[in-house]
């Protein structure tokens, strides 16, 4: 699922980098006892149009909350999920001059 997490405005990148690193460390630890362990965070997305929130793709929302608990700029996960269709347009930004090239 994809969930929305709140973070300090302007700290989207720091928060995502730290959270990703926490998940990588967590995965390494779990791989010792379970060779099929997967990363609790599949991906993190932060469109530049959106400040103070990041999208987190995960199979286990509660585990993300656990991994993020010590991050200073992480302000919690908003209940509910978003679909890929709702956020896909952020991946393909329209050119700024779209529509102005006629003639």
């Amino acid at each position, binding site marked *: 699922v*994809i969930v929305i997490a709140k973070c300090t405005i302007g700290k989207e990148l720091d928060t*995502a980098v730290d959270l990703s690193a926490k*998940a990588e460390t967590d995965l390494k630890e779990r791989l010792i006892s379970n060779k099929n362990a997967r990363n609790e965070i*599949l991906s993190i*997305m*932060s469109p*530049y149009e959106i400040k103070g929130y990041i999208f987190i793709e995960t199979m286990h929302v509660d585990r993300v909350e656990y991994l993020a608990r010590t991050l200073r700029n992480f302000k919690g996960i908003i209940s509910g999920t978003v679909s890929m269709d709702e956020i896909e347009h952020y991946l393909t*930004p329209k050119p700024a001059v779209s529509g102005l090239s006629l003639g």
Partner: protein
Amino acid sequence: MKKQYLACKICKRLTTDQFCPVHGDEKTTEEWFGFVIVNDPEGSVIAKRAGITEPGMYAIKVRS
């Protein structure tokens, strides 16, 4: 000390280096907007839609 991330204009990878780690000759730029961090490209729907097949940090948009 805050790290300044720069993006490759070809693959959009984010790096703290002046040159892309994959495209050695490509100078990276600070003019990028939005990002995706992919930990598990095989499991991630976002990575698939973005066409990302390797773990890492990527800019969504890079000014060329």
